């Protein structure tokens, strides 16, 4: 499945888009990502699944797109 990254998160992942192994839920994907990019664990962001911000661990279906969106401070 595909995970999108925005803003300074792309400094950590070195890419705005990654393909990761499918998993049962969003927490599993985040665990996978934190293991691969330890700096992500301390970054501030919200998670969206198929364009919808989620507040809790969410089950994932096939062909889902996840996005990690950090706040931007600049004006």
């Amino acid at each position, binding site marked *: 499945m595909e995970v999108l990254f925005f803003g300074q998160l792309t400094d950590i992942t070195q890419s705005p888009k990654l393909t990761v192994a499918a998993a049962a839920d969003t927490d599993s994907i985040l665990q996978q990502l934190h293991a691969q990019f330890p700096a992500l664990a301390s970054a501030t962001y919200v998670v969206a699944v198929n364009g919808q911000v989620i507040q809790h661990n969410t089950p994932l279906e096939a062909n889902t797109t996840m996005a990690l969106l950090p706040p931007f401070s600049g*004006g």
Partner: protein
Amino acid sequence: MELLPTYDRYHRQIILKGFGEAAQQKLLHSKVLVIGAGGLGCPVLQYLAAAGVGHIGIADDDTVSLSNLQRQPLYSMQHIGQLKVEVARQKLLELNPDISIEIFPFRWQPQHCVEYFPAYDLVVDGSDNFATRYMINDACVLLGKPLVFGAVGQFDGQLGLLNALQTDGSFSCNYRDLFAEQPAENAVANCAQAGVLGVLPAVIGSMMATEVIKWITGIGILPMNKVIVYQALSQEIFSISLQKNTTAAALIPASIENFLAMEYAWACEEPGAKFAISIPAFYELLDSMEVAVIDVRNYDETPVIDGFADRRIPLSLLENHLAELDAEALVFVCQTGVRSLAAASLASKMNPGKSVYSLQGGMEAYCAQRNLNHHE
């Protein structure tokens, strides 16, 4: 007939399908407060003034500096050192003398929200820090004002129409429904630290102005309960849906009294901010005691310091060299004053008896000040 030149000025939008004289009259009678006259504020102000928003408030306590000109084309070389709100008012009235402009040349505080928001129809957040962003959001929720927010960083931007009255009588999502808690200011790098593509705030600011005009005139579909995210490098736009967040709602002060007592700036003050020393105070310190100035930037960073003696020890190597620094007072310097704060915290921890400082605003502020002095 006074109407004719007005009609001529706005002709190209009045003839639009669904716009007409009625929408133009709504714009001419509207009042919009824009907080922040920087990268986002400039395009918002220019297009709202051009479109004929009848009364515009501009709040910003900053003066024009050379590093602003890359993305704030309302200002020119001759304006360096002048208050942004003063220059903006003059330029906007040159563009459209039929509108009125009110300026607020001070750092926006909670009491200003309570005092001035009620007189405006809509608030625009073009601020450049989280303290102001969360303060404006919470005030808009408490006072029932719609808010168009925008934010940029590096190559990406976000914007949205927040807290707008919906047809069912409830208010749409606000900024805390997206990012519930105010992050520490140094948890997310700002434009001075992380950079910003100059044209990016023009894109986001123009999209913000579009939403303001749509909200006032009632045309189109308003992006309520959504945040729009734009990536300049791919030219992709994402629309991300929001829903009400109960955790977020609990973080908004329950009353105006509680709001006025909130310490927004405190909540995101950088650790070690107590070490910050202003440029004039720094000069006084140099004259009054034995001071070692340590530049904690990497070896390849410019401009190099002139005007006072210094030693360069990159922050990553500082810990191993602290014992060598035996001057009475230590002043740490970096590019923007962020790394030097970390250096000062470290030095103070390792050597508690010593006077330790961090030059506020770093070399950028120092060079700007020196250029200003040369101009005078």
